[in-house]
């Protein structure tokens, strides 16, 4: 490498260190105009540097995973809320005058902006003294009564169990189950 080359590269590095474009520099242009070998080398450097920002950062890949997990958790929260609402309305509609109040708690999570619920299936069972109800609700609107054991009883206490919530989440980047 000649002294001329060293000066040339020092100039190129100084420009790149300042986040400039060496091909905007008259001195660099004059040099590469005379030296196609330098020009090819410079083009290879610039070509690689231009494509480097497109290389995924590992922490961004992890962050994307965390975002998906958060979206899933938010959707699950919303579904839990829907299940709780359905449960309360069913209890209110069917329950005779009782002294007890079913205790239903549901965590409310903010809806995920990057995802939406495509389908859900909720399995619910209610047990109270002398009575047990179980049914499945689906997003299609279908409700299947799994079992019903009726017995005249005064409900004094209610317990609701929401079965495993099956979700399918559609994100901007594709679908996952």
């Amino acid at each position, binding site marked *: 490498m000649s002294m001329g080359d060293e000066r040339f*590269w020092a100039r*190129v*590095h100084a420009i*790149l*260190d300042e986040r400039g474009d060496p*091909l905007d520099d008259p001195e660099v*242009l004059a040099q*590469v*105009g005379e030296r*196609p*070998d330098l*020009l*090819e*080398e*410079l*083009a*290879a*450097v*610039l*070509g*690689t*540097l*231009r*494509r*480097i*920002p*497109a*290389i995924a*950062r590992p922490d961004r890949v992890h962050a994307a995973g965390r975002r998906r997990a958060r979206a899933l958790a938010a959707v699950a929260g919303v579904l839990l809320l829907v299940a709780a609402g359905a449960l309360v309305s069913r209890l209110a509609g069917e329950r005779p005058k009782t002294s007890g109040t079913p205790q239903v708690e549901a965590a409310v999570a903010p809806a995920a902006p990057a995802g939406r619920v495509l389908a859900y299936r909720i399995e619910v069972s209610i047990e109270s003294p002398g009575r047990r109800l179980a049914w499945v609700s689906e997003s299609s609107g279908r409700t299947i009564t799994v079992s019903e054991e009726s017995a005249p009883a005064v409900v004094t206490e209610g317990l609701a169990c929401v079965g495993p919530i099956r979700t399918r989440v559609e994100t901007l980047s594709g679908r996952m189950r």
Partner: protein
Amino acid sequence: MGSTESQRELERRILGEVPRLRAFLRNLAGEEADDLVQETIARGLRYRSAFRPAGSLVGWMTRIAFRVFLDHRARAARAPEALGEREREIAAPETMGLDDREEIDRRLAVLSDMEREILLAFHRDGRSIAEIAQRRRMPAGTVKSHLHRARRKLGRRGPTQRDAGGTEAG
């Protein structure tokens, strides 16, 4: 060799430069390289009588390609920019095909860990030299040395570099 025959031979050699010119222009112009290669070849054929047989065809064609690239850049700079164009560019950085990705991986593979990390910190993550120096607890001058060495290594032509055909001394 007769004049017509030598002209045909030159045309054949000019066309043989396509893979190398494509790699060269792809480095400079990315996705627009194919159009520029076409223009370069057209210019080369048009002005082939100006080529001196004693000279290097590689050098001659490279200079033409670079001139074509500079003209293209000047035209692009003069062209009115559509509203929102800049934002779209920022929002969607250049995407890479598998070949590009392999090429970049191959070039980065020749760097030491330190060189690669510093290069990516500066050119991918946008960190300043001072910031990298602080994080790595080393003088800024040392960071620069690693960075400059890494860049130079990226420019060196490896034996497996794709599209590296049509070499000619000169």
